[in-house]
């Protein structure tokens, strides 16, 4: 059974970094089903690709992560969402998790932290 992963971040570098990390780490059965650069696109893509797991930035154009998490949680109640954001604003992160996310990883993150967190998310 494959785990479908979607990566949402307005930074192209971060998106590609997480995607590359998933390929390089050879975690079994992870399929990257989408990369989205803003909240609106993320909601649209989530509806289309129905991911099981999502990494989610908070500050993004068009629709911020908090609103995006709310939308996706309604759309895909079983999807697990990992917030990936700078730690400077804990309050926003807490609100985002209350909206329907499952965990939090702060930027900048080490490769190991990201892999461990995704494994924890999938457990």
């Amino acid at each position, binding site marked *: 059974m494959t785990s479908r992963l979607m990566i949402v971040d307005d930074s192209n570098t971060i998106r590609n970094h997480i995607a590359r990390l998933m390929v390089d780490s050879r975690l079994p059965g992870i399929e990257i089903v989408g990369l989205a650069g803003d909240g609106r696109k993320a909601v649209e893509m989530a509806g289309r690709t129905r991911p099981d797991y999502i990494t989610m930035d908070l500050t993004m154009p068009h629709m911020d992560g908090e609103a995006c998490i709310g939308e996706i949680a309604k759309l895909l109640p079983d999807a697990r969402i990992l917030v990936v954001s700078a730690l400077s604003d804990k309050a926003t992160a807490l609100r985002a998790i209350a909206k329907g996310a499952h*965990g939090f990883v702060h930027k900048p993150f080490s490769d190991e932290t990201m892999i461990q*967190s995704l494994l924890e998310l999938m457990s």
Partner: protein
Amino acid sequence: MKSNRSTFFGRYRALLLAIGLFFLVAVSIFAFNYGLSVQLAIDGARVKDAGAIRGLTQQHAKAILSLSHELAAGDMIQTSQAQLSESSLALEEALARSLTSAKAANVVSELELLAKFEKFWRPLAEISKSVERREHPDQVDVQLALTKSNANNVRLMQLADDLTQMIESAAAERTRNLGTMQAAAIALALASFLFIVFYTLRSLRRSDRVAELARAETEQIMTTVREGLFLIDRAGAVGSQRSMHLEKIFPGSMPPGAEFLQVLASLVSDETLKSAREYIGLLFNKRVKVALVKSLNPLQRVEITADEQQGKPAVYLSFDFHPVFSDQQEGVAAVLVSVVDISQQVALERELERAEERSRTGMSLLVSVLENDPRVVGTFLAGAEASLKEINEELRLIKAGPGSYNMLINRIFRIVHTTKGEAAALALHTVTRQAHLFEETLSSLRKRLDLRGEDLIAVATSTGELLEELSKVRGIVDHLGAYAGGRTDESSATGEDIHHTMQRIQRLTLAVAADLGKRVRVETSLTDMDTLPDAFRRLLKEGLPQLVRNAVAHGIESGNERLQAGKTAEGSVRIEVRRGETGVLELEVADDGRGIDAGELRRKLVDSGRYQEHEVAAMTVREVIATIFQPGMSTADDVNEHAGRGVGLDVLYSLVRETGARIKLVSTPSSFTRFILQWSPAL
């Protein structure tokens, strides 16, 4: 649930068996009693029948005797006949009942006895029947019956007695046996009851002991553990079990049942409290992965402000939260909170940071001094210290009055600005920073026209602080001097190599550009530099830093601005020292930046309030441009370490005048600016 049930039966099997046995025995006793009472009734009836047989035998004999007497006397015989008939019938009935019951009980001896009775009774019964029914019985028959009755009566009585006795003793025997059995059953019931009581008490005592041991262990843990430990439930209420250490480290009181966040409310900021409420809420949410939100814990390191602790050092606590799951409840039942006092750790970290900062500053100072020729640094220090001491002296001796105060402040400003420029050129950043702070103090004073004596106190303090920074550099130079065998001889410091100066200036240019986030390429061109007069050397040493700072801060645009203007992102600053044909020495600093826009300058002159609009309108371009050399005039929009005070070119202008040089300025807006300082012995 299934396993729970099986362990329940396993643990209490003996008790359940004892209770079962007790019930069985109790029911048996009741059944026994019932059987016994039925048997007693039967035995009673049989004894009664046997007794009746005896009595009726006697009654029968008496009736025959009466009949015989009445017949002989010629009296009425009906009564006796009736009595005879009655007793005979009753006896038959009693006999039949006894027989039935004896057969039912299958008592052989009794049956034999009854058979014997029957044998003696039957002939008598036959005769009496013939007598009792006739209206006038035959005298002979009556006599025969009497004779028979007399003959059999004693025997019948005897047999009836024996029967009675036999039944009675059998009944007594049975009653005794039943009593023994009953006593045994009661004893058994009592035994099982006692077992139940004993077992229950023993179980209770054992579980009490286990509970007591567990309680004692918990208490040992709670009194020994070096953490504040307690539970909070879903409603946020604090549990009854708290570790003793909690009282030591937690400044407020946290009684059982109190609401944790309410207790916390008076000790932390509202924002932290709000975040803590949200965070604890998340921990009770089954969806959230606790390991993945640990970094969001707002109480991981929190400064506790307790009113009664004013004056004491700040207390830092670290709260950690672990969800507690329970069998009885779905999801998270409670959250275990562990609190640790990290004040010492925080203090240590701060101290380390300070030490690192000190060593960084010390190291950077050391590196700066090492990068420069110690003699040059020595010269700089001597000059700056002399100037600052002069300031102190003048502050002490100044005559009261706003005019003289303002003049002094302006003079001090120029000295401090020169010191800052030289320090920056030597990469002595700590001095540069301190001089910059001094400038800030001075520029706020410069704007005022109502200066008073006490305003100068701040100037004296800042002078002291700048001297302090200089003395730190002096300390390092002296140390190095000691190692180098006194190389920091001041008298030889004037002979700094021109190439060394240029390297320094190049470094300064790049450092200023990096500070302002600009990209700059520096080119230098030096020709025929063997013999330079002191005046020109001074222009290089004091004027050049101002010129390059000016070029980078004001001339060169930001990378974006340059790209938009169609230039390369990297700006260019060219420094040239050349000797003209007529022996004129020239220092040129050229940048390919935004140039000087006369129109813009006119607007600034009006905005700054220095000139009226009509005055500016009447000025020629040349006159407008010349204003940039006036004190306090700057084209920069905001103030930083490198620009905005309007001092640099003012200082340059004074220097040019003092050395007898000439200044030339060529600029095209959006294209370039060139400053040329010319000096010749003839001038």
